[in-house]
């Protein structure tokens, strides 16, 4: 009697659902041997539509040439999506990697080291190659770079009666000029206020978060204290400000909206100015020297290739194509990426004079801290800097904390 047709439907439904769940349970996890599917995926954090279009065009051109299909996947949140891809055992084949995450991925065996397969690898700036070298092996090659420079609103500059000779070349001059340009609710000089911007001043003072080979925390040094004291004085006097304290999200916004006359920011501001503040008259100059000499932070990404990718050969070929001088020139023209090759330095300076200051910094710059787990330390330091700006924390205490947290992260 059970064999009523509708009864079977119910039983089949129950059994079918179970089967679906069970099949799922038997699916393969990780440990799969990588297997090429004859196509590449490229995951990248795009700075905007121009970059997305340029990367897509470059991939299409390479596919045409090589016969290997390549898909561009713009990620909204690259860090998280990439990490989940690694953890899921199925990351994209090629992706952007930043120095702060590089070492963690290299150490974890997620990156395929291919630096020795790039023939003219010496052409890339040493400061950038250092950022992507782990245990003497170059894992990936840089795609572009940027450095912190001083960006000036030239209208306000001229209004204040300042000329080329007045461009600050020392900390003292920066403070004086900023004071001169401060008026009403406009500050003379604004900086982001995060660890990167404070870090640049620490470099100029001769300090930094860690020692040269990234093995020891060097948070509470007199040099770092000098940098923070310098910033604190400016903040207290009101001619320096962190951008968030003047209702801006970024240096470009602070300058574009006239909330600051000078800002410290990276070369990505050029795109923001073109899009959001086309009326703005601005120029970028190299940062003034600190007591420790000329210094700035360099920001970059490299083209990482996943160890788990099944198409290492094709992926390396793609990267070779994307980092060729011709393609880097195309990227520079399309979305303003500064080519990371020394042989293109003159071309860059001639073609993009407004970017010269950002490009020049690479000669004396240092890359972001690559120590795994250091991001939390730096975020805590950023919080401390906000306290300093608000007057509720002392620079020395913030640095002492930085030292303790840094030691903990480095396992000292």
């Amino acid at each position, binding site marked *: *009697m*059970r064999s*009523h047709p*509708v*009864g*079977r*439907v*119910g*039983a089949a*439904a*129950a059994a079918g*659902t179970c089967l*679906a*769940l069970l099949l*799922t*349970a038997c*699916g*393969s*996890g*990780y440990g799969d041997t990588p297997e090429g599917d004859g196509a590449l995926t490229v995951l990248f*954090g*795009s*700075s*905007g*539509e121009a970059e*997305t*279009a340029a990367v*897509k065009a470059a991939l299409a051109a390479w596919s045409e040439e090589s016969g290997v299909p390549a898909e561009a*996947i*713009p*990620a*909204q*949140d*690259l860090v*998280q*999506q*990439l*990490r*989940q*891809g690694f*953890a*899921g*055992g*199925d990351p994209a084949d090629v992706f952007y990697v930043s120095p702060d995450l590089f070492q963690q991925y290299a150490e974890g065996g997620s990156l395929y080291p291919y630096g020795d397969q790039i023939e003219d690898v010496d052409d890339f700036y040493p400061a950038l190659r250092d950022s992507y070298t782990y245990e003497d092996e170059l894992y990936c090659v840089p795609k572009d770079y940027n450095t912190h420079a001083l960006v000036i609103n030239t209208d306000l500059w001229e209004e204040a009666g300042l000329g080329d000779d007045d461009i600050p070349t020392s900390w003292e001059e920066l403070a004086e000029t900023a004071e001169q340009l401060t008026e009403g609710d406009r500050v003379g000089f604004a900086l982001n206020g995060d660890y990167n911007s404070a870090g640049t001043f620490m470099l100029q003072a001769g300090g930094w978060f860690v020692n040269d080979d990234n093995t020891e925390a060097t948070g509470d040094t007199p040099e770092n204290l000098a940098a923070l004291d310098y910033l604190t004085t400016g903040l207290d006097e009101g001619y320096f400000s962190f951008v968030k304290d003047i209702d801006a*999200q*970024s240096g470009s916004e602070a300058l574009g909206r006239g909330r600051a006359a000078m800002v410290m920011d990276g070369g990505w501001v050029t795109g923001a100015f073109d899009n959001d503040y086309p009326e703005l008259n601005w120029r970028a100059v190299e940062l003034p020297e600190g007591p420790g000499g000329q210094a700035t932070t360099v920001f970059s990404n490299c083209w990482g290739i996943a160890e788990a990718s099944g198409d290492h050969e094709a992926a390396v070929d793609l990267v070779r194509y994307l980092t060729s001088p011709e393609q880097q020139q195309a990227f520079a023209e399309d979305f303003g990426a500064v080519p990371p090759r020394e042989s293109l330095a003159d071309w860059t300076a001639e073609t993009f004079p407004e970017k010269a200051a950002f490009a020049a910094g690479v000669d004396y710059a240092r890359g972001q801290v690559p120590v795994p787990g250091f991001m939390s330390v730096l975020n805590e330091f950023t919080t401390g800097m906000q306290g300093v700006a608000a007057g509720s924390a002392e620079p020395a205490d913030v640095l002492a904390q930085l030292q303790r947290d840094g030691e903990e992260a480095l396992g000292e």
Partner: protein
Amino acid sequence: MAQATRAARPLVRGRAAIWVAGYAVLAVGTVLYLGPFIVQLANSVKTDADAAANPLALLPDPFSAHAWRRAFGLDTALDMPIGRWLGNSLFVTVSVTVGRLLVDSLIGYALARLRFAGRSAVNALVLAVLAVPGVVLLIPKFLVLKQLGIFDSYAGMILPLLCDAVGIMLLKTAFEQVPRELEEAARMDGAGVFTTYWRVVLPLVRPALITVAILSFQGSWNEFTHFLVATSDPAYETLNLGLARLAAGPLGGAQQFPLKLALATLSTIPVLIVYLLFQRHFIASQMNSGGKS
């Protein structure tokens, strides 16, 4: 007598006071509860600059459909595959809803009507599920999806959402209220357990099925955290997840509020339609669960 009239007068005054205060609260409340949605809609048809400068203005100046054109993918080579987002949202939502109806009603019927060894243990397990706070499951779910090899897949997005203790309890209660005689009659006619369930009882709990369906629809359309940890490939982004990543990602600083507000409106519209059509179910189910305790 005198007592009664004395009591009546404050009563009338009380009524008037309640009337005035009541409408005052309702008016203020309506502004507070609808206002954000109206501001949202108004600013989605402004230019970026206008929205930044006059966020309160309800009339755009100038009117700009730019954000909506982008939201529908009509403008420029866009980073955001809105069509894909909508498609994913729809597919996942429908799958979860159908799946839950089936899975929930099967176990709901078993718990309500079948005396089987281990039933109370099953019942206790389902109740325990209700007590597990969702956010502590983010990492665990990620781990299991990886291990099963269904990370970054529709299966990984849909199957975990089939755990739905609320729906099970709703349907179980509904099945319990079906008169037993109907089933007995069917059984007399020789129908087996499945036939009785499928043919006789299921049609009788239609209101509860509709309630579970709309709760599932609303829940999975709005789902965010599960999809966040279940996928990394943007090809699997739902509208909600894509929107969240757009707002939270490092590029979120690029403001573009009209676009974000337009997309937020787009994600609200299906739920709004379902809500307006079935609000009695929404409200009744919510009040039931609240009233019972």
